[in-house]
């Protein structure tokens, strides 16, 4: 197709009956995205370079002052580093646990179909509702988690999960991991099932052990899937607002905030709209880089 289009003059390529129909059909999508997505992004950039009052009206040009202010705050760097740590740790855990579940589900055992369905539940459930359920599970006096941990003698003095910086971060990141595991498991499982049985059979004849089969056949067989699923998971994890906001609201004292929750609180709770916009711009840039990498990998796979 590209060969043919190259010889047609540009004007004709842009303006012919087929192209006109395409523009017409794309108009609703473009208009809606323009008004409710691109314009807001533009506006956030504008606000990041402006002074704004407490009801988010722009009152003057600020140049780079907001960013100088932001980068001069120690708390901004703490939260940025925490966001990256949050993403790295959670994605690593989701990948490992998802892989383990995929390996388990790839074995034929009675009840495997039912097990597969049950493993999906954390993903199928609504994130805000799951977060509320976890908040109850973590309850220091009446929550069943600490009771169970004590009853199973895993620990005798369980932490007050949501009231402590370290335990709070662990509690939040676990819920985020918990939500993300099923997607990883399903994608890895789909990849594993696409690997030809012949490979495993010849490996069996060669007498290799299960670990060698896993590292020499399974892992290379799902490497493309591994890449795209990890990228997608990075985007979701970095973007996770609901879990932290509902479990701890970033507390105690901002010790569980990541960029995404901090933007919201800086804007709608502290009413510092220029600062919030500055953080949103930084976040936008990080997300764009990740999204472009994801899109590149996705496109490459569509072609192959």
């Amino acid at each position: 197709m590209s060969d043919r289009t190259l010889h047609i003059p540009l004007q004709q390529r842009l303006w012919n009956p087929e192209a006109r129909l395409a523009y017409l059909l794309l108009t609703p999508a473009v208009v809606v995205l323009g008004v409710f997505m691109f314009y807001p992004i533009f506006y956030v950039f504008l606000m990041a370079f402006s002074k704004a009052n407490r009801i988010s009206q722009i009152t003057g040009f600020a140049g780079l002052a907001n960013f100088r202010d932001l980068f001069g705050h120690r708390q901004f760097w703490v939260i940025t580093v925490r966001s990256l740590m949050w993403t790295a740790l959670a994605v690593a855990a989701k990948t490992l646990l998802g892989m383990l579940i995929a390996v388990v589900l790839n074995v034929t055992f009675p009840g495997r179909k039912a097990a597969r369905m049950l493993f999906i539940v954390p993903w199928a459930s609504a994130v805000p509702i799951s977060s509320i359920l976890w908040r109850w599970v973590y309850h220091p006096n009446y929550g069943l988690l600490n009771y169970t941990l004590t009853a199973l003698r895993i620990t005798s003095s369980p932490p007050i999960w949501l009231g402590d910086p370290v335990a709070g971060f662990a509690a939040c990141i676990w819920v985020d991991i918990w939500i993300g595991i099923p997607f990883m498991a399903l994608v890895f499982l789909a990849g594993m099932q696409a690997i030809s049985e012949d490979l495993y059979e010849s490996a069996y004849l060669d007498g290799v052990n299960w670990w060698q089969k896993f590292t020499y056949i399974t892992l290379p067989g799902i490497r493309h899937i591994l890449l795209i699923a990890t990228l997608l998971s990075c985007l979701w994890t970095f973007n996770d607002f609901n879990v932290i906001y509902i479990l701890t609201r970033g507390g105690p004292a901002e010790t569980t905030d990541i960029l995404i929750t901090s933007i919201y609180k800086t804007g709608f709770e502290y009413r510092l709209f220029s600062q919030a916009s500055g953080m949103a711009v930084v976040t936008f840039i990080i997300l764009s880089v990740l999204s472009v990498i994801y899109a590149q990998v996705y496109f490459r796979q569509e072609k192959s």
Partner: protein
Amino acid sequence: MKWKNRGKVLAVVLAVALLAVLLFPFFAMVSTMLKSAKEVYTSPPYWIPKHPLLSNLWSVWREYELAVYFRSSVIIALGAMALNTLITVPAAYAVARLRFAGRKAVLYLFLVIEMFSPVIVVIALFKIVAGLGLLDTYVSLIIANAVFTIAFTIWMMNGYFKSIPIEIEEAALIDGCTRAQTITRIMIPIAVPGLVTAMIYSFIYAWNEFLFGLTFIQSKPRMPLVIGLYQFVGRWTTQWELLNAAAFWALIPVLVLFYLIERRLVAGLAGGAVKA
């Protein structure tokens, strides 16, 4: 053969252990919603209710006015789904079937914005919604939810339209169908499974959405379900036995719908790497 059986036993043991951990909050939900308030507020707590009762499941409809929130969520999710479909189908057809300059760029753009966080734009979007006089309306959430799903649904529908052999459409065009007729009479009926997946996806997205609901809606009758439930947490009088019962009801529709689209959803997200 012996090691194979050992592998199976190990798989079953691991599956049960992992499921016990992963389903923990749902076990807790069921345990709590079957307890009376007195049993719930006993420290230390216990798993099996001593006098299990179903009354929480019914009284939550009265005491939380659950029906009000359900109604809001249904209106918002159906509205977002309808708007999403109206925008998605023509756009997806255009990128899947028509030749025009910039087709690749448009597709690429949709893929990149698919994962953008609503939090980045929520401040500006709040101003736009307020400016249009749409604060505290269903319309604000219908639009916001539709906007944040169309990039993904266009991609999904693009894939389904592309998988339909072009000869079918060409034959119809030769037989005198107009473009519009080929879309409504041929493409859409064949792509129904994909279309249903995209529609259910946008319904679930709106049903589960939290951030926009939290920001745009202030008055109780228009609150979607998840915001309604959130409002009950953190108050010093939180009645957890009722809240868990409400969560149970709120989860049923999304769980059912999710299982209908799960396989296609995974394929849509992972691209050519996974087949539906």
